[in-house]
């Protein structure tokens, strides 16, 4: 018998003596979110509280203009594989290991947790290695709850999804919070639409 079969056999030997517990059904959270009427606003509040920055623009054209302006402060950029061509900043493109700026296309965002949803197909290293990270999200992809967002992504799961909810932080040195430990120390959500 394999380890697998022995483990399952031991589990099955015990379970008849344990009362079956039913699954309680979907997680309801706080039912109506505090700012459910303004989902992008709710996202902004939560993401900012965690140390992230939020920029909201009305159209892809304005996003591209804002990005060009912002990128001017950097020497090199690494960009996500699914970023629309007209949004790629006019910078020297560098591998994520050395790029000063990372620009990713976000799969979406979650208001209640203040999270950006990042898809492996856009490139994991660009999401993690450059010290500053800009993530584009279409306003219609901002979900109110994590349950909504997970339901949405579960229909098309890549090898990895990352939820990023602010800059990298740690309080492991003397309980004092510092940012930018491994991931980006500065992260901006660029909400378009």
């Amino acid at each position: 018998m394999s380890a697998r079969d022995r483990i399952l056999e031991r589990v099955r030997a015990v379970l008849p003596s344990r009362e079956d517990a039913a699954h309680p059904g979907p997680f309801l959270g706080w039912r109506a979110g505090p700012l459910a009427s303004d989902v992008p606003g709710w996202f902004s509040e939560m993401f900012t509280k965690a140390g992230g920055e939020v920029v909201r623009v009305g159209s892809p054209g304005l996003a591209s203009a804002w990005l060009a302006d912002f990128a001017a402060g950097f020497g090199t950029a690494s960009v996500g594989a699914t970023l629309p061509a007209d949004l790629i900043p006019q910078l020297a493109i560098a591998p994520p290991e050395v790029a000063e700026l990372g620009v990713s296309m976000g799969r979406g965002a979650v208001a209640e947790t203040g999270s950006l949803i990042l898809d492996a197909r856009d490139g994991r290293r660009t999401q993690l290695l450059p010290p500053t990270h800009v993530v584009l999200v279409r306003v219609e992809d901002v979900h109110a709850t994590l349950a909504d967002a997970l339901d949405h992504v579960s229909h098309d799961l890549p090898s990895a999804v990352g939820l990023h909810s602010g800059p990298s932080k740690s309080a492991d040195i003397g309980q004092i919070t510092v940012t930018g430990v491994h991931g980006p120390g500065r992260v901006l959500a660029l909400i378009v639409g």
Partner: protein
Amino acid sequence: MSRGRPAGYARAAADTIRNKPQIRSAVTAATKSFDAHRREAWSQIDVDAWRDWCRDVKQHVVTHLDRYLEEAEAKLLANGVRVHWAESAEEALAVLGAVVDEAGIRRVVKAKSMLTEELGVNEYLEGRGVHVRETDLGEYIIQLLGEPPSHIVGPAIHRSLDDSRRLFHEHFGTPMDSSPEALAATARQALREEFLAADLGISGGNFLVAETGTLALIENEGNIRLSTSAPPVHVAFVGIEKLLPRIADLSGFLQITARAATGQPIGNYVSLISGPRRAGEIDGPETVHVVLVDNGRTRLLGEDVAWEALRCVRCGACLNICPVYRQTGGHPYGFTYSGPIGAILAPGLLGLEEAMPLPFASSLCGACADVCPVRIPIPDILLHWRERAVEAGLVPASERLGMRAYAALAERPRAFAAAGAGLRFVPWALGGRALPVLGGWSGERAPPELSPRPFHRLWKEGIE
């Protein structure tokens, strides 16, 4: 990185309190701050309903564990993950050894994981000449110090800023007055090289979703995302109790775990990993292994009272609020898991005799049960293990006699009052130490201030 054994608890705890007062102050400050954040985060939600829901989902999983293990295995395999099962630490390490041999692994980066501590992964790899580097900043600090973690969420909470300054000065020559930011930047640079040079990343798993074969990992620094993204091979060790039925269930668990642990609405980074790099993806590991580990968990499942401990999500909230844990931190417990959860897991995972005296390392104040997000009845389980220990003759004779004498007195009101009155005149320094049970206790403490009249008299006369 020796961890000692539970049997050394009393001596190690006394030594910490007497000779390392800085540990008590660092641990107390850190846990109080964690707990204050939890309280604030819980005040924002319908916490009782959330806790009920989380308890019920976990109870459902544990009572249908075989079904979800099989479903998860099938999904993982379909996703291209290589699935292994391990009954013991030795078997889990043998799986890792085979991966190391097959892929010619020389350098490993590790994401923080209590299960890999439990299994002894670092010692095993080092013994095989493999370079292994912890990448969570707290884990990195204690790895450089040669210590095990002191807390399941904040492994280095027993160390002060000055301790880290000294450590970094010795290793990197940074100035003794470096800011925390400067120290973190030094670590970032050193570890960045490790991530990019590693041929294997090792992680644990907070949750494993059966429906989709998705592993969920929670962290704040980004080191877990990097450890599971940069190296070409990823091995995840997952306890068999870590399953969740559906991906939708993560919505409750990711939120309550973070709120219970640090008061955040969600961990700063969550990785949802559903397999190796796919065609069309530009990076990520080519091979992902998931090792499903028993190592005593099915034994715990067979325990009629203690089995409820299998719901634990390792948030650390019970450690943070525990007045006993706060005095010493985790090291004296001599077991991977410390504090209240450690005291109830140890007898289940190690066997009661080996776990002694951990079920007694508690004042039974009940605070842990009030904060546990999955409502594990920790004090009931502690009492259960204590009863079992007494039955098995694992409790010192003096303590058993003392308890029996106390029970006899407590049943006779007059004798109880007389004994109580007598106790008021026992000099603390001499008599207190000689008394059974109280002896060990009074040795480490200042005498209590007695009220001018005994409680039973106040009670009779009516307390003003």
